[in-house]
């Protein structure tokens, strides 16, 4: 596996995808970001880095993941559906692809302390996992609200040797965890590596995370060509920050495959009830990037909601904003209820319980299934497994 060649559509040298992206962060961090950028350029050409990455991705993370033909879902939907099985990755989601890459990069940059933000805890667990493997010190910031909702993931991170810091400011969720991680980084910038979990944040993070996640799409492309001898008509992926979606889209951007991102429609269309930044947001600036953002008219960031904690974020990666603007990808949202229905549907039909996040991708496809003919090929990215969400269903069921 190799990192992709120089990106076709960006970012440019200032970190912009068209009008989106950039580096809106305090001056104290600029030198660290520039060092990160040049360090990353160096390792892109470094064979020993690629060898280390390949080893960890195969032996540790469990790649390649299967592209699996879902026969019962296919006949129910009326077209040929393949599932990209990121749920089979170590730690249960695609997050590990990025963590392995960035942690190796951190070591090359001489940083022995890693910090990260997490929402549901998946990125926190993946970061703590690779930190344990590489013997790095690890601190995870997590909103107090999420700590309460995801107690087992907090315990997992602690088992792996990470320090988990509860964040009590603001809405006590992912965005506030990210604020606090940035504050830590400003304070400890010289010995600390900030391992961002999505294609978000200041340049070069959206590019780095995309490159490390693009393995999903390059694998899927090879696999679908081997199985079917042609490229798919459409790909569905859920979009919160957007890392699994960019990961699977990227290899297909030059092709004619339709790229479809499914956002969290939550419980309604009014502000505060969903987290559909691309479908309902406006351009804004948060966490170092100019992108589509859910904010109130005063310019403060709006409250957001989703049943899937991993989609519960008011912004989105700048490359998605650009793909939307260029009409290379299309985005719409499904509700909590539709995602839940899709969760049960896939579990019963295929024996694969998806994460609530990934269930949005399934629901998005299901909603549009009548667009497809019997011979049409569709890939749905199952970004993570549903195990983490089953306790919640259990509690609700009682």
């Amino acid at each position, binding site marked *: 596996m190799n990192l992709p060649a120089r990106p076709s559509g960006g970012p440019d040298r200032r970190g912009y995808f068209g009008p989106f992206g950039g*580096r809106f962060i*305090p*001056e104290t961090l600029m030198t660290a970001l520039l060092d990160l950028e040049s360090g990353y350029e160096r390792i892109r050409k470094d064979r020993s880095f690629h060898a280390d990455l390949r080893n960890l991705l195969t032996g540790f993370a469990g790649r390649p993941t299967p592209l699996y033909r879902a026969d019962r879902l296919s006949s129910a939907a009326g077209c040929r559906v393949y599932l990209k099985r990121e749920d089979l990755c170590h730690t249960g989601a695609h997050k590990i692809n990025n963590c392995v890459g960035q942690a190796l990069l951190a070591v090359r940059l001489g940083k022995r302390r890693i910090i990260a933000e997490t929402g549901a805890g998946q990125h926190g667990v993946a970061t703590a996992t690779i930190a344990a493997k590489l013997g790095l010190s690890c601190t995870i910031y997590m909103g107090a609200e999420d700590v309460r909702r995801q107690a087992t993931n907090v315990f997992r991170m602690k088992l792996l040797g990470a320090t988990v810091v509860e964040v009590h400011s603001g809405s006590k969720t992912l965005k506030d965890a990210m604020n606090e991680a940035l*504050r830590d980084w400003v304070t400890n910038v010289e010995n600390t590596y900030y391992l961002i979990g999505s294609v978000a944040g200041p340049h070069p993070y959206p590019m780095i995370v995309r490159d490390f996640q693009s393995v999903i799409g390059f694998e899927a492309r090879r696999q679908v060509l081997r199985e079917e001898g042609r490229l798919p008509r459409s790909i569905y992926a859920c979009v919160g920050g957007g890392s699994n979606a960019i990961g699977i889209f990227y290899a297909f951007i030059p092709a004619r495959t339709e790229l479809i991102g499914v956002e969290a429609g939550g419980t309604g269309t009014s502000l505060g009830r969903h987290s559909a930044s691309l479908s309902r947001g406006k351009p804004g600036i948060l966490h170092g990037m100019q992108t589509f953002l859910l904010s109130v008219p*005063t310019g403060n960031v709006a409250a957001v909601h989703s049943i899937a904690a991993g989609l519960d974020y008011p912004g989105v990666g700048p490359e998605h904003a650009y793909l939307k603007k260029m009409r290379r990808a299309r985005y719409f949202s499904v509700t909590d209820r539709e995602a839940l229905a899709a969760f049960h549907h896939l579990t019963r039909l295929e024996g694969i319980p998806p994460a609530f996040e990934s269930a949005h991708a399934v629901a998005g496809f299901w909603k549009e299934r009548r667009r497809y003919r019997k011979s049409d090929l569709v890939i749905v990215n199952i970004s993570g497994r549903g195990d983490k969400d089953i306790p919640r269903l259990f509690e609700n069921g009682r």
Partner: protein
Amino acid sequence: MGAKKLILYLTAGYPDGSRFARAASVAADEGVDILEIGLPFSDPVADGPVIQAASAVAIRSGVTFERTLAMSARLPQSLPRVLMTYANPIFVRGWSRAFSLARSAGFSGAILPDIPVEELASIEPFRPPGFYLVPFVAPTTSPDRLSRICRTARDGAFIYLVSLRGITGARIGDTVAEEVTAVTRRIRRLTHAPVYVGFGIRTAADAEKFGRCADGVIVGSSALAALGRGLAPFARLIRQMRRKLDRLD
């Protein structure tokens, strides 16, 4: 008025509208040179717990861009003031329009801590004449970027020198003063703009120490904390700082 400047940060509408106005006039009476008025933002990544809490209080009580401007317009004309906020509240109104409105409300410039010089360059064209944007220098700023930053200090802008690696209100380490002195010396070779030091300046002794290193000091968290206790402790803190600064040079 002393040669060393005292810059005071207040969050607009904190603790409430009337006490904010009284605090601003106390500041003017006690010899504050520039008032930095913070338009509260929901996600202030450069700020520590004190300013975060003050921002949350102000947002809850309904402080917006428009109300901040109205509060500024009621302050005495003689008190120079600069608007401090983050990128998004300005961006959503349009840079040019927001800056012009701020200037009409008596602000002579803006401080935007999440806009480094690279991004400042693309905002610069929207700056109305006579309204300055304050560039930041941090202890981590590299020499090649320092000269670029200093070139952007125009139209009366000062340079905001961040004393430490951290957020506002953080504790200042022992070696910080030496570092600040060295960076100030490098800045002086590149620009005539005044250099004011901020972040972590809590006491009159800190003000004295850092006033010696640069052209002035910026005080925020400790003044807000004092204001939270009452106008009297707030006035006392400023008076002590002013006195120490006046004794310098």
